[in-house]
């Protein structure tokens, strides 16, 4: 399967160019930080009126990955919704699209800082998920290892013959993998930021998303 193949704690995993993580042995796909409903939340708080297509676009890309991998378990690694009120702003066809994706699959919402409580939207709500040898949680816990986490929206910046190039990326070392944000309306935190430098080991890799996923040493 297309993507960057690697092993974490003995589990064979694939980082897709889309930003999703696939675990073939478990037929499991994991995405983080969908931030569904971001545009509505900004507007609700008196902010600008962004294009209302971000839920559709995110679901469309998620659907593509689910079909491609034929995964049976979908883990959304927290901050799936931009806040708990978003539910009421989802359109009917957006909800039914989500329900169609959930039908016949095991769907797990891990809670994040933006969406700490359960929502009336199908699937199972968990604080974290342990499938040996890996633990899925939203915010990385630097005292733990063998974890799959999100939260930071890592992005890597490199210079291509003077051309400035920046892409969301996975961060990977022998303790953990940190997923990029999957949602359409999300930004990124540079790998050089203190939080990420402290979290990752010196030999960590950044796996750039894009048409293909590409590993580079984590830019520091």
């Amino acid at each position, binding site marked *: 399967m297309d993507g960057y193949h690697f092993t974490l704690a003995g589990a064979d995993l694939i980082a897709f160019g889309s930003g999703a993580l696939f675990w073939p042995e478990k037929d499991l796909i994991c995405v983080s930080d969908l931030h569904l409903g971001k545009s509505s939340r900004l507007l609700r708080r008196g902010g*600008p009126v962004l*294009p209302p297509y971000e839920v559709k676009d995110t679901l469309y890309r998620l659907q593509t990955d689910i079909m491609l991998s034929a995964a049976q378990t979908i883990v959304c690694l927290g901050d799936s919704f931009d806040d708990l009120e978003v539910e009421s702003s989802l359109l009917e066809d957006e909800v039914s699209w989500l329900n169609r994706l959930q039908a016949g699959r095991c769907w797990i919402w891990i809670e994040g800082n933006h969406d700490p409580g359960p929502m009336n939207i199908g699937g199972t709500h968990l604080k974290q998920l342990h499938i040996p040898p890996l633990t899925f949680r939203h915010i990385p816990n630097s005292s733990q290892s063998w974890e799959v986490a999100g939260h930071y929206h890592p992005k890597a910046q490199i210079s291509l013959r003077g*051309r400035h190039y920046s892409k969301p990326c996975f961060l990977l070392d022998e303790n953990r993998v940190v997923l990029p944000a999957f949602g359409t309306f999300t930004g990124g935190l540079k790998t050089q930021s203190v939080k990420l430098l402290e979290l990752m080991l010196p030999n960590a890799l950044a796996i750039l998303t894009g048409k293909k996923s590409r590993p580079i040493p984590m830019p520091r």
Partner: protein
Amino acid sequence: MKTAATAYLFAYKREWHLKIEISRNISKWLVGKNWQLFPHQIAMLRSRHQIAQLLIAPTGAGKTLAGFLPSLMELEQKRSHCLHTLYISPLKSLAADIKRNLTVPLEEIGLEIKVEDRTGDTSSYVKRRQRVAPPDILLTTPESLALLISFEDAPRIFAGLRRVIVDEIHALAETKRGDQLMLALSRVQALAPEVRRVGLSATVEDPEAIATFLTLSPQECLIHFADPGPTPNIQMLEPLENLPWAGAGGRYAIPQVLEQVRNHNTTLIFHNTRAQAEIFFHELWLQNEEVLPIAIHHASLDREQRQKVEQAMVNGELRAVVCTGSLDLGIDWGDVDLVIQIGAPKNVKRLVQRIGRANHQYNAPSKAIIVPANRFETVECIAALEAVRENDLDGEPKGAGPLDVLCQHILLVACSGPFLTDVLFKEVRATGSYRSLRRADFDECMAFCINGGYALRKYDRWQRIICRPDGQYVLRDPRSAQRIRLNVGTIQDTDTLKVRLQRKRGGKPLGEIEELFAASLTPGDTFLIGGEVVRFENLREMIVEVSRKSDKQPKIATFTGTKFATSTLLCNRILKLFEEKNWEGLPQETKNWLQLQDDLSILPKRRSLLVETFPRQGRHHLCIYGFIGRNAQQTLGLLISKQLETKGLAPLGFVATDYATLIWGLEEVLDPKSLFSLSEFESGMDGWLAENALMKRSFRAVATISGLIERNFPGQRKSGRQATFSSDIIYETLRKFEPDHLMMRMTRADAMSGLVDFSRIRQMLTNVGGRIEHKRLRKLSPLSAPLFLEAGRVPIEGQAIERMLVEESELLIEEAGLKIKVC
């Protein structure tokens, strides 16, 4: 103490006797100074009751006094204190300068008039006080005025306003800032219907257009012309030695320039770009053996540095200033007696305005020298000199008022309180640029402000502006007023990063460089800023940290600066020069060169398009002499090479100047005439543009101005950058789901006329009307030769980005000694 600038503001010693009823105090003061009024100043005083009047006058003609005199007359009789006159200038520093220069005479005349400025630099305490108790005369900028009208107490602030003075209106009229200003004034006029407008302008090609821009449409605007003064004394540099074939820096002329500086009191040395100014300044100092006090001034320098230079200039401490457009406007400096323009002027109007900076004695001719940077530019310089002599000024016709500015205006009006759309539409239509605004376009902007105006109706519950039962529109959430005000303005930050010395070396701010340039630096690289060579150390929180180096040559020669495209008028004059073969004034070597071109190929003409093809070093070349300015020639390069790619002619790259585009590839182009079809270009534009970085840049500007994207948030934190996301994402989303949304249409319109400049390609094809002259040559032509030396070659990419990415990531992995399987 009276500064030199004050003297210039009020100096008008002329033997002119006119009877005019000015107040005793003012005339006593004039007599005391032995000063008399100019005819245009008297004329403006007499017609002060006109709804709008425009003064066209060269520098030094007492423009500012002409603008303020009616106000002083009225204020003398005024009893109660309230805002009487609003003065708007494009520059903060000008507002502060005028304040200084008004205060002294007001005291001398004995008028108790309160004058204050209000700009981005004014403290919030003073700003609040000004809203409660406004001064008699308020000096401000378009942005600060836009903010003022957005306050709920705007009706009270402007209730007593009688006069508005718009300074440097010719500069404002060319930009979106001007459109914003005039929209704000339409609001002010609604609050204070008696307001009279005065515009002060430098010499322009189309005074009527400025008048239309200024007036309260459809009322007439009176235009006054000051005596233009004696014809400027302007020449090309002599003798021209070692003139290079290509390049734009004019470094070869440094010894002659120094000689001129030595022979004059104060010289302004203008450059077209900051990068060129930096390099020239650096080289100038390497040759400045007498240590003549020469400074540099441009917009990327740190504000404190700039102010120092300005102060030194006012104090008469400098013999020369190397500068860019940052000194095109602004404070009148007494002692400038020579202007040197390095590089072809690109635009006659700007050249004339720059020349006007020399010699502010109104009745003495300004003196200027232009220095062609390369051989071809001698032709452009001669053409420009002719145009100046014939007072033939260029200018693109001003387009209709942009809709993004209108969107911002609607939001600002909503911040001030409830409004009716019909009333607002009428107000907006009274603004010159928006006098032909269609109701449908206005309604679309309104819809955008209400709920985004998207085809997908998702936000009806959370509209930004809601309609009350009484038909008035108001902000739904009062919190958004603060957010909207925080994002006022139409000036776009080109992505620049601050440069400062490393903290351990004092952390002194030096200026700014473009983000793209910063991204290309690796630690250890040296470059120029503020005339000194610095070494790039690191990038910390979006600040470029550097250390000083004593190197003579920077490793990185240049950074990208905005390049002005040569104007249509100037291009046509060059072609006319070719046709008439009237080459007097050109250096002999240039004459020989042009003659050789005529012998071996032909010279380009006005009503046809010359295209040459020839082989060189195993590559086939195609040279298109469009004479449509650099931006349009660049776009032409992209469009033609795309066609060549489709035809399998394997183009490899191209380079563009203001006059021509040179494309090279593996196959010969046998039938170049077939390439120039407007419909082909137009469909090519659609595909190419959508993906292009220029388009994304235009989108960001449009989306920011119209309030779709916020640059500033309340309580902005330094961390948490993952919460903000790039405007490119919004652009891509709209492109995918609603490509015809108002934002996208505005973006296309802006890109076509601005950086992409497709309008000039269209214009050229119409002019040429199929008359394409193809010369198939055995070797390169004389006129095409300099193109081979030109910097800024564009490789044709196709898969190049992906390929470079593969190379780079493998290289990095290898360098790090990691062994990874790349799938």
